[in-house]
C-alpha cells in the first residue's frame, strides 16, 4: 500500500522522540485497538474456527478440517454459480457506477444552476431504506409496471419480464444498485473536481486541449487518485452485495442473481449449516483481500499522485 509510507520525512536523529511518540500513539490508539480486538478480531477468529467444523445450529459439532471448503468447491451446486454471479455483478456494477458517478460529477460543474440541489437529489437514494427502493423498482419493472406500460402504449413494444427473465434479471439488479449506490462516488468525484488546480486546466486549454481530449489527458489523470479510491471501495461493496438481489429478485430466476453473500446467508440462517457458511465467507474474504491487494499493486500504472 503505497499511500502509507510518505509521512515520516524527517526521521533522522529522532529515535528518542519516536519512542515517546510510540507511547503516546498507544494511548491514542488504545480505544480503537481494544474495540477492534473485541469486536472484529475475536468474531473473525470464531468464524475461522466455525469454518473448520461441521457446525449445525443445533446439536453435535464435529471437527471437519477443510471438509467444508472441499464441499463448497466440489459438491455444492450453488456455490460456483454464486461466485460467478458475484463476479458478474462486480464486473458490471463497478464500471457503470464509476462512469455514471463521474459523468454526473463532471456535468455538475460550477456553472450549473442549482447544482447543490441536484447533488442532494442524486445522493438521496443512498439514504433511502433499501426495502422501499426494492419495492418501488419491482413495481416499475414488472410487466404490469410503469416501464412496460409506457413502452406498450408509446412504442407498441412489449418489454421482457425483467426480474423473472434470466437474461435480464442481473442487468436490472445492477441498474437498481447503481441508482441506489452511485451517490457516494459522485460526492467523492465532485470533491476531487473542486480541488483541480485551475492554472493547469487553463494551460492545457491554451495548448488547444478541449472536450474529450481535455478530459482524457488532463482531467482524468488528475482525478486518478480519487478514481482509484472509489474503485477500491466500490469493488469491496460490489462483492459484498446482498440486500439488492435478495429483495429485488430473491436471487432468481433459478440462481441467476444469487450472489455469494446471499448464498452465505442462506446456508447459515435458512439451512443452519454455519460451518459451510463460514467457509464460504472466508473464500469471499480472501477474494476481496486479493483483489484489493492487486489493485494497490496495479495502481502505479495509472494513478498519478502529485508528489
Amino acid at each position, binding site marked *: 500500500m503505497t499511500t502509507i509510507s510518505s509521512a515520516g520525512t524527517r526521521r533522522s536523529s529522532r529515535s528518542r522522540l519516536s519512542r515517546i511518540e510510540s507511547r503516546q500513539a498507544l494511548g491514542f490508539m488504545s480505544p480503537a485497538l481494544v474495540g477492534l480486538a473485541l469486536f472484529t478480531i475475536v468474531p473473525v477468529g470464531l468464524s475461522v474456527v466455525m469454518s473448520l467444523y461441521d457446525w449445525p*445450529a443445533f446439536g453435535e459439532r464435529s471437527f471437519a478440517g477443510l471438509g467444508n471448503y472441499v464441499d463448497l468447491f466440489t459438491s455444492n451446486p450453488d456455490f460456483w454459480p454464486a461466485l460467478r454471479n458475484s463476479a458478474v455483478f462486480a464486473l458490471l456494477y463497478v464500471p457503470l457506477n464509476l462512469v455514471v458517478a463521474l459523468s454526473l460529477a463532471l456535468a455538475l460543474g460550477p456553472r450549473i444552476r442549482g447544482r447543490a440541489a441536484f447533488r442532494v437529489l442524486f445522493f438521496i437514494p443512498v439514504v433511502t431504506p433499501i426495502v422501499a427502493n426494492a419495492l418501488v423498482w419491482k413495481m416499475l419493472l414488472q410487466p404490469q409496471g410503469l416501464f412496460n406500460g409506457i413502452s406498450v402504449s408509446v412504442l407498441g413494444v412489449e418489454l421482457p419480464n425483467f426480474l423473472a427473465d434470466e437474461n435480464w434479471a442481473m442487468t436490472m439488479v445492477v441498474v437498481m444498485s447503481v441508482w441506489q449506490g452511485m451517490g457516494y462516488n459522485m460526492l467523492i468525484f465532485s470533491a476531487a473536481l473542486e480541488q483541480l488546480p485551475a492554472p493547469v486546466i487553463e494551460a492545457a486549454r491554451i495548448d488547444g486541449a478541449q472536450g474529450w481530449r481535455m478530459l482524457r489527458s488532463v482531467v482524468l489523470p488528475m482525478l486518478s487518485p480519487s478514481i482509484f479510491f472509489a474503485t477500491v471501495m466500490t469493488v469491496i461493496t460490489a462483492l459484498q452485495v446482498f440486500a439488492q438481489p435478495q429483495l429485488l*429478485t430473491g436471487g432468481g430466476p433459478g440462481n441467476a442473481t444469487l450472489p455469494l453473500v446471499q448464498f452465505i446467508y442462506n446456508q447459515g440462517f435458512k439451512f443452519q449449516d454455519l460451518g459451510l457458511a463460514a467457509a464460504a465467507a472466508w473464500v469471499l474474504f480472501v477474494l476481496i483481500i486479493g483483489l484489493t491487494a492487486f489493485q494497490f499493486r496495479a495502481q502505479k500504472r495509472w494513478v498519478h499522485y502529485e508528489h
Partner: protein
Amino acid sequence: MRMRTPLLASTAALAMLGLAACGSGSGSGGSDDGAIVWDMWSGSQADTDALNETLEIVKKENPDVDVRLQTAPWNDYFTKLTTNMSSGNLACLTSMNGQRLSTYADAFEPLTDADLKTAGISRDDFAPGALDIMTYDDQLLGLPFDVSTMLVYYNKDLIDAAGAPEPKIGWSFDDFEATAQGATTDATKGFAVGLGEFQWMALPIAMSGQQPVGEDGTLALTDPAFADAATWYSGLVTDQEVALPAASASDTGWGENQYSGGNAAMAVDGTWNAVSYLGNDAGFDAGMVDLPTGEAGSTSLVLGSGYGIAKGCENKEAALKVLGSLVGKDAQDAMATSGRSYPARAESQPLYFSSLDKSVRGEVEAAFDAAFADVEAQRSTKDWDKVNTALQPDLVSVYNGQATMTDVLGQTQQQFGE
C-alpha cells in the same frame, strides 16, 4: 509497537481455544431469571395485543410460574431462531410452523404421554389430524394451536362481470379450468399462480392425489402423477394463459397479491387468510371454496402451527404447564372468538365462525367443513425447507417459459433426493 500484532493474534487464539473447549454447548432455558420464555412471531401491535391477552390467560392459570413473551416479525422469526439455536439461547416455549418443523426438529423435546399429562392435555382434545402438524419422524414435537388448509378464493365481482361459472363446493378440475378461462379478459386474468410452498403445490397435489414426499419420507418430486399435475399447473400460465407469470422470485406472495389487488379472479391461499380476504381493502365481493376434486378423490393437507418445548429447557415441568394453558380451552376459545386463527382444539372451532359477520358465516363454514373433511398429514423430508428455497426461484423461470416444470422438478429431486 511490534508487540501489538502478537498480542492480537494470541487474543484470537485464546478465543478459539475457549470455543473449541465448549464445542457443543446446546440449548438452555434462554433466560437468567428462571422465567419461562415464550417465543412467538408477531407483526403489528394488534398481533402483540392478542398474544398478550393469551399471556394473561396463561398467567391466571399458572400463578406460580413467571412467563415472558418475546416476539419477532414473521419473516425474521426463523432467522433469529437460528441464531438462538446456535448460541444455546432457545426459548423454553418456541413457536413453530408445521411446514418448517422438519428443519428445526432437532431443537425440540419429543413429548411423551407423561408430558401431556403434566400439561393437562389429552390427544383427543384436538381436531382430527391436528397433531400431525407438530409430528415429525413419528415423534410428537409440540402441540398445535391452529389448523389450516388451502382454499380457492375468488372474486365474485370479476367472475360475474365476465359471466364465468362461479366455483362451487365439490367442484372438479374441469370446472376450475372453465372458471379460469371464462374469467380471463383483456384486463384481468382468471387465476393467479403461487410461489409459496403450498400456494402452488396445493393444486398439483389435489389433482394428482399425490404428495411430493413418499410415505417413507423420501422426496418424490418426480412421481409421474405429481409431475404431470405440476406441469398442468405451470401450463395455466404458459399454455392456457389464464394466469400471469410471476414478476420476481422475491415476490413470495405473488399470486395472493394479484388476487387481493383485483387483478386475478382466483388464487389459492390458506384458511388463515379467510377473514382478511372477506374484508378486503379493494372492496370486492370475495368467496371461497375447497380445492377442486381430482380423479383420485379430494386430497388436501392439514397445515398449521404449534408450540414446542426446546431441548435443554431447564424447567421443563413449568414449561409443560404453560404449554398446556397455551393450547388449553380458555386460550383457544379466546383465539377463536377473536377470529384471528382457526383453533386446533375441536371444541373451540365453532366459536371461530360465530366471530364472523352473519352474511358470510354460512359460506365460510361450508367451505371450511368441505376443505377439512378429509385432510391428510403433510409429509416432510429433513431438507424440506431447502427444497422449497431451491424451487421458488426456479418456478419463476418455469412461469416465464425459460425452463420446464419437468426439468426443474428433476434437478431438484436429484439435488435433494439422496
